[in-house]
């Protein structure tokens, strides 16, 4: 999506970005109005719910930084979780299932990468196509039915806790840590900035742009596969509609987090805040028993306001 019109506020950590403002206001607002909000249980609950979205939003940040996009993530997650479930049910081995899910993620990531880097089809349409493929496969394999009969051991990955902290929160933290290291402390990360910022720089430095692009999308696929594990554990089943449309939530979270669609201007921590902001909003609105129709509108408002604030700040 690297286009003149899509460019917007570059968020530097120095200045307080829109997402932080919004998140703060939300927390204060809900904390004041709804008693249940500021409890440990509820905060844990919010973070737990946010994990799966976070697992998609992190790689999405990286992908968007390369001026790319991955619309297939939600569908890939769904398909991976179905494959996982089926494998577990048939073989009885969660490990195999997990590997199968990762394999699915890897394949789709690789596919996206190849189509984009080698056949240079624009990311948007490439992943729109693979979205259809993953979705179709999910339907075909399951015939629309949920896949059930997964051993409890899998569910515990989601529902379990370690030292009082829910597993998903820990997993989310780990995933963030890994992505952060990848992005800011490895060659991969440095080149991601270059992919979005100035591909010529990479070529001159003798680094294969294609290989890099493929890696980026494979990373996305793998994370989707990983998220599939959590999703399956959460539902204790796999369902062909479970992850539909999550990619857009992820993209929104990334944008709310202040990552630009242009020139490799990304901010991973912002994405984290963005994901949490969405989680807090939904949770808070539920606690306040706000009618769903209003909730729907609020989510739209959140996205626009956060970006509006960023826009304001960069007004010359």
């Amino acid at each position: 999506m690297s286009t003149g019109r899509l460019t917007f506020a570059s968020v530097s950590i120095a200045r307080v970005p829109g997402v932080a403002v919004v998140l703060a206001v939300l927390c204060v607002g809900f904390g004041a109005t709804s008693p249940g909000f500021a409890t440990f249980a509820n905060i844990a609950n919010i973070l737990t719910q946010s994990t799966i979205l976070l697992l998609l939003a992190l790689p999405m940040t990286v992908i968007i930084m390369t001026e790319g996009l991955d619309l297939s993530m939600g569908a890939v997650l769904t398909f991976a979780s179905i494959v996982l479930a089926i494998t577990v049910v048939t073989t009885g081995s969660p490990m195999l299932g997990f590997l199968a899910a990762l394999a699915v993620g890897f394949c789709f990531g690789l596919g996206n990468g190849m189509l984009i880097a080698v056949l240079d089809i624009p990311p948007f349409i490439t992943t729109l196509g693979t979205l259809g493929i993953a979705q179709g496969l999910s339907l075909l394999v399951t015939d629309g039915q949920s896949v059930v009969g997964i051993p409890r051991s899998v569910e515990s990955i989601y529902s379990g806790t370690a030292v009082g902290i829910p597993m998903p929160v820990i997993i989310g933290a780990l995933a963030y840590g890994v992505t952060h290291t990848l992005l800011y402390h490895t060659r991969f990360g440095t080149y991601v900035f270059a992919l979005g910022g100035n591909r010529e720089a990479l070529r001159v430095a003798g680094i294969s742009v294609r290989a890099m692009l493929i890696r980026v999308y494979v990373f996305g696929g793998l994370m989707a596969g990983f998220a599939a594990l959590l999703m399956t554990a959460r539902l204790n089943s796999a369902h062909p509609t479970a992850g539909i449309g999550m990619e857009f939530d992820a993209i929104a979270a990334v944008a709310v987090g202040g990552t630009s669609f242009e020139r490799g201007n990304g901010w991973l921590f912002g994405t984290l805040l963005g994901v949490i902001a969405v989680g807090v909003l939904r949770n808070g609105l539920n606690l306040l028993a706000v009618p769903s129709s209003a909730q729907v509108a609020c989510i739209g408002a959140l996205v626009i306001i956060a970006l509006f604030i960023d826009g304001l700040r960069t007004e010359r």
Partner: protein
Amino acid sequence: MNGSTCGWRVTVVPLFELRGISKEFPGVKALDDVSFEIRAGEVHMLVGENGAGKSTLMKILCGAYRADRGSFFHRGEPVTINDSTAARTFGIAVIFQDFTLVPYLDIAQNIFLGCEFSGRLPGLIDQRRIHTEAKRVLDMVGFNIDPRTLVHGLGVAQQQMVEIAKALSQDASILVMDEPTAALSDRETERLFAMIARLKKNGVAIIYISHRLSEVFALGDRITVLRDGRKIASLLPAETTPDHLVTLMVGRPVDTTYTRLSRPTPGEVVLQVKNLSGPSGFADINLTVRAGEIVGLSGLVGSGRTEVARAIFGVDRVTAGEIRLFGERIGGSAEDSARRGMALIPENRKTQGLALTRSVGDNIVLAGLRKLFPLGFFIPRRAMKAARAIIEKLRIATPTPRRPVATLSGGNQQKVVIGKWLNADARFYIFDEPTRGIDVGAKAEIFRLLDGLVHSGAAILMISSEQIEIVHICDRAYVMRSGRIAGELTHHELTEANIVRLGIDQ
């Protein structure tokens, strides 16, 4: 490597040599049996008109392109260069005009892009070491800045410094500079030259591509002239004169010391700017431009010239002051200015002047659409006709208006940008660096064009970093310094010395 053992041979055996290089692109023969050699510690000037094959040759040298025919020798040993990494092993580094920097990485990361230091843990990189090393290299270049600052925020000159530092960090023994001064003010140019001198002393060989004859003679130890992909001559500065050199480049004599033919007596005031101030970094600007006048706007790069121009044209916001065009006060929008007959030829034609993916014709008619089609209905045939007329008038070298404008040479692209406004029959033109990256032949044409405009009664405000141009072309000039008008120079005060005196901040 006997060359290295016995020092005296180094001077004789060139550090690097290309022999009989030929390269064809579909349709064009970019290089035809060109031989070129570079010795340690010399500055080798590579001159020629755009499209002469300079860039192609350099791209082959640094492994970006592969030669169809020809051979390479490093210290007399035959070698092959298939890719940029191979080129780098021979210490070849190139600084292209359009920089290869990543905006949202910091200076240090940019300098070491592609050769990061591994950290203690496998896979990780040692950011601290990168930054300390970067600091060292930057000091070497004499560029005093925190290596942690993002490139995103740097000015052109600073970015170039980073580019050079980058090249040196890969301890380059052969440094190729493609029009390094194109974007620099004299100040910065001096610093660059000083650094080049330092590099020479350290035995670095420098290949320097330039359109500015002054530089060619000031810096060059040897000069090689290319024309139409063929090597025309390789000579010492002593053996030639500017005119002779130009004749070699163009293939026909051209008058370079361009001066106005005659001066129409200035007519009524076309543009009047009173106490203009804006957030983009200029304050209290006063200037007037009369019909039939070319008024210069000089000063260091970053002194706010471009910002003033943009504000006058109505692109950037102004906080105070007023702008009057033909006596009427104009308010703020580029559209309004354009409709009232103002034209802006921006400093960067690629990013600001042209829709590169569109055709020459589409670009030419863009600004004049209202004038050409008052009813709002677009008639391709008529548009093509108008475009052709401009193409003829400006002698733009393109077979058809349908050709994508990206395929034209710099000079011709610049003409397209100008032609755009001829179509809109503008009466007041702002030229921002109209001759940047344009070869001597085209330069003269552009100047003649300016001349034609003022003779037809138009008024021109011309921004240029090359004082020589201001002095030769303009009737008067304003000199800016850090966002303010430092002074006005009437025609007989108009000398390079005066411009510099006003331009540099005390």
